[in-house]
Structure formats: structure tokens, C-alpha cells
């Protein structure tokens, strides 16, 4: 099996990402050119003058840019977390939400929006973050008390997911009016509207830290290929590695879900698609899958906000509608090779 060189793949991916960001911020009702965006960026860094009018400048830098960047951060983070989860749990069906993080977040968000918990002081994101951490904490405690093996972790995650989903549905059906219900549903499926620079900075910061933690553990993740006992006999401190990596990915997932809702598909499928390019060794897989996730979500969000303009489609819906056929195509191609 010949594989594309990962350095080349990574460089190409980063270039594609930069290009995608500058192209997608020009797509929309107000017409702006990519060259204009670059010149405007230069002007902001003190080189040359911006060709954009103040309104165009506002559209690019206050509306579209934070939205595009959070899509990139979110795509990178979810793909990274998904890849780590699948390896750590030795389960190809694992995704970033398998530890109940997204279900807990939705319950937290609903508690804030519908029940008015936090008395208006606590934001939706903060409520979601607390809910996500509660759910993750419950899963960890439950799985540890059950012996701490990986299948117990997955089963505990399933339990938490069911519990918090039920709490969310119950709360919405009981207390919310139609408009709030639609708002909640929209948030549950993931949406990049209403994000600002604060969300971008926070999520990008968490992504940078968690990415560094994961990249420091690439050989550890490789060692789990043949199970925990094999990993231990290769010198891995299994319990410690498990806690560090699960906590890091849960924190990142919680930060992302709290800002933009639970965007599905990316964290489940993109790691698999990337493995077909890079192989399963994590030093190659993790950076490449993050870049591919970023590019993917930037374009998906552009579709989501333009296809039915002015109506916006939830990103989570588009990821699956676009991603599933693409993934099936990849599966068919790889079937021919093996």
C-alpha cells in the first residue's frame, strides 16, 4: 500500500485551509474578492491600505471571519478527538460524543434557555460547558467503579448519553414554547451563527493545548493497537495515559460543543477517511486529520449558510448530507485497492 507522504499532505492541507478561509469569507450576499480580503488582512497588520469599504470590512472581520475560523477550529478539534477516541477505546464507532459530552452539554444548554437556570447571568455556552463536564465526570466515575476497562467506559458513555438526552427532551417538551423548541433543535444540530471572536479565541486556545497533549502521546496511542495489556508491555502507563487523553479530548469537545452545538459526523468519519491516506500511525494521522477536518467544515458551513439563503441549514445536517456520500465513495475506492 503506497501512502502519500504525510509532510506533503500536511503542507498541502494547510495551504488548502488558508485558501478555503479566504475564499469562503467572500462568498455571500455582499460581494468581496479574495484579493480584497488578503489586502485587508495586510492593512490590519500595517502593510498597505484596505480596499474594502467600512461595511465590507465589518462583514468580513466581524461576521464571516469569526464564523469561518470557528468552523475550522471545530472541524480540526472534532476530527482530532474522534481519532484519539477511536484508538484509545479500540472502537471504530467511537466519536468525540461517546463519553456523553454532547448530551450533557445539551441538557446544560436547555436548563439555561428553557428553565432559566443561572438567572440570566449564566450564558448558554457556560451552561452547556457545565453540563458537558458533569456528564463526563459521571462517565469517568461510573466506569472507574466498574473496573475501568475500555468497554466499561463505552457502556458508561452510552448510559450517560441516554440519560441526558432523555432529560433534554423531557425539559423541552414540558416547558418550552414552539420558538424556543426550534432554537434548541437548531443548537443541538450545530450552528456557527452567533459566534464571535471570543468563542474563536477560546476554542482555538483549547485546541492548541489539547493538540499538543495528543501529539505528545502519538506513540502511546500507537501502542494501544493490540490492546491495553500489549500497550503496558510496551512501557505505556495505561491508566495514566487513559485519564490524560480522555480528559484532554473531553475538555476540547466540551469547549466546542458549548460554542457551536453538537456537530455530528466529522469526529466519526473523518478519522477513518484520513487513515486511508496516512495509515493508522498517529504521528501522521493526528495532524493530517485535524487539517482535513478544518477544511471540510469550513466548506460545509459555507454551504449551510448559502444553499437555501436566507434560510440557514444546521451544519450538522449538511455534514451528514455531504459527508455520507463522500465517505461511501471513499469506501468503494479503497475496496478496489485492498
Amino acid at each position, binding site marked *: 500500500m503506497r501512502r502519500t507522504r504525510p509532510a506533503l499532505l500536511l503542507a498541502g492541507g494547510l495551504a488548502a485551509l488558508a485558501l478555503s478561509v479566504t475564499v469562503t469569507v467572500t462568498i455571500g450576499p455582499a460581494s468581496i474578492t479574495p484579493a480584497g480580503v488578503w489586502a485587508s488582512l495586510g492593512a490590519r497588520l500595517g502593510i498597505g491600505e484596505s480596499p474594502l469599504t467600512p461595511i465590507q470590512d465589518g462583514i468580513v472581520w466581524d461576521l464571516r471571519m469569526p464564523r469561518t475560523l470557528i468552523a475550522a477550529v471545530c472541524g480540526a478539534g472534532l476530527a482530532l478527538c474522534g481519532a484519539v477516541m477511536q484508538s484509545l477505546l479500540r472502537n*471504530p464507532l467511537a466519536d468525540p460524543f461517546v463519553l456523553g459530552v454532547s448530551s450533557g452539554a445539551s441538557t446544560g444548554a436547555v436548563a439555561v434557555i428553557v428553565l432559566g437556570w443561572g438567572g440570566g447571568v449564566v450564558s448558554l455556552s457556560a451552561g452547556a460547558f457545565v453540563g458537558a463536564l458533569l456528564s463526563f465526570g459521571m462517565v469517568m466515575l461510573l466506569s472507574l467503579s466498574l473496573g475501568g476497562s475500555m468497554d466499561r467506559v463505552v457502556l458508561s458513555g452510552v448510559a450517560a448519553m441516554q440519560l441526558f438526552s432523555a432529560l433534554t427532551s423531557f425539559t423541552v417538551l414540558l416547558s418550552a414554547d414552539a420558538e424556543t423548541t426550534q432554537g434548541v433543535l437548531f443548537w443541538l444540530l450545530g450552528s456557527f451563527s452567533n459566534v464571535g471572536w471570543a468563542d474563536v479565541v477560546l476554542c482555538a486556545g483549547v485546541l492548541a493545548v489539547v493538540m499538543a497533549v495528543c501529539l505528545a502521546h502519538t506513540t502511546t496511542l500507537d501502542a494501544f493497537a493490540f490492546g491495553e495489556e500489549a500497550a503496558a508491555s510496551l512501557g505505556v502507563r495505561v491508566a495514566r495515559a487513559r485519564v490524560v487523553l480522555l480528559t484532554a479530548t473531553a475538555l476540547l469537545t466540551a469547549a466546542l460543543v458549548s460554542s457551536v452545538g453538537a456537530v455530528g459526523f466529522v469526529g466519526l468519519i473523518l478519522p477513518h477517511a484520513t487513515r486511508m491516506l496516512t495509515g493508522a500511525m498517529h504521528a501522521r494521522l493526528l495532524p493530517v486529520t485535524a487539517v482535513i477536518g478544518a477544511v471540510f467544515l469550513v466548506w460545509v458551513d459555507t454551504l449551510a449558510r448559502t444553499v437555501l439563503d436566507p434560510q440557514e441549514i444546521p451544519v450538522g445536517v449538511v455534514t451528514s448530507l455531504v459527508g455520507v456520500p463522500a465517505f461511501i465513495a471513499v469506501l468503494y475506492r479503497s475496496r478496489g485497492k485492498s
Partner: protein
Amino acid sequence: MSETGTFGAAGAGTAATAAEDAAEAVSGARGGHLRADGVVRRIGDRAVLDGVTLAPRPGETVGLLGPNGSGKSTLLRLLAGVLGPTAGTVTFDGDPLPSVGRRAVARRVAVVQQESQTQTEMSVRDVVGLGRIPHRRAWTPVTPDDRRAVDTALERTGLADRAGQSWHTLSGGERQRVQIARALAQEPSELLLDEPTNHLDIQYQLDLLELAVSLPVTTVIALHDLNLAAMYCDRLVVLRDGRAVAEGTPGQVLTPALIRDVYGVRAEVTGEGERPVVRFLRRGDPDV
């Protein structure tokens, strides 16, 4: 660098073993590298291992025999440091394993399990490369040393031309061979094998044991088959209910009395000297 281990001097295997023999003769009191002294492992009230001492001499192949549940696997896991003993100690060069550290132990002691399974899509070279994990540092790419160790291990196990092949396309015997190559890439001084031939055709069983005993490392191998143990091991230790009930050369250990005692079956033992042959008897067969 002493840390690269015995196998680091690949090709000079016998020389390394001889040097170690000499070293042991000098250091004497410290004994071999890896040893277990009076180890006990309890699960609840039951002692899975009950005071076993095992001190393989450098370079030799020790066979662990005993019925299912006699404690063979547990002893190997204690020796690998994957489990901790309830009482007693496992030491490497005199230091208890916990104080040596997991990574340092993994640079000296390699394990091949009964059967290895993965859902991960990996090439043979990828799998063998896992053996370099205890030698690698975070953030550091694969070094020329790593590559050399993997190449040497592939060659030594006759897998050099299979390096690019997918793990999932290999037969059971080939997979075990790859796992031995992975163990060699760890450049260990001790190799622990837990019933490595269990699911293999006889041709692969002989191949694998032939390979295992040809390696310039100290080998401890749990086996079911008494004849394979007699053919390939320098010394045998027999476990029953967590205790060592016999120890010595195959000729000393494999007697009809011991086999009846430990396994509860009648057998005839023939063959001269250190490589006896065991033939089991049917109910109606007369005692020999």
C-alpha cells in the same frame, strides 16, 4: 550504551551470550537479569500464584508447564511487570520492577501473547515498529537506530520481504512471527512467550519455537505441549495450583509419575537423555 540490550549486538548473538555468562559468573550473587522470588498473586481469597521463584540463567530457554489455571500466564505477567505481585518480588538486575519504571522494563523485557488482535489497519513494518515505542521519546521522529532495529528484526524473522504487507492478510503463524519480530525490535534481553503456538498448525509451531530458541535472549515460554517443551527447552518448571512442583532439565522433569501427578493422565516416557518423548496412554493400555 548498555541500554540497547543484548540483542543490540545483532549477529554477534552467541558472543553476547557468552559475555553474559561470564558477567554472571563474576556478579554471581546478583543472579540473572530478570527473576521472581517467592511471588504470590491473590485474587480475593484464592492464590493464583503461591510463592514461586524463577531465575532464568542468561541465554537459556525455560519452559513453563502446568495445566490450565496453574498460574503460568500470571507468572509471565508478573515477570513482564504488567501485574504486581501480592507478595514476593520481581527484580531486574536486583532492582524491583516498579523502581525500574515501565518504559525501562519494556526496553529489556519483551512479551509475545497467545494471540494478538487488532482492528487497526497496519503493515507488518508498522507492527514491528511498535517495538520501538519504549525507546522513542515524545515529539521525536523515528531515528536511524529505530529503523535499523526494525530492519534487523524483520530479517532475523525472515519477514524482510513481507514488510509492506497488511497485518490482516497474514495467517496465524505469520502473525505470531511478526509479534516475535516486534518483540525483537524492543532489543530485549529477556523474551516472555505465553503459549505462542496455541492456535497454529504443527509446521508453524515448530517454526516458531525453532525461531524463539535461536534468538540470543533469555526466553521464558509457557507451553501446553510436553513434547514441544522437551524438544526446545533447556529447563522446565512445572506449576500446579500456583506452586512450582518440579524443576530441572526435560529429562529430569518429564517422568510418568510427574505427568500422572500434575495432569492426572497416564503416559509412557521414552528417549534417552535430555530430550525425552512423551506418549499418552489410553484407558485400556497396560502400564509401561
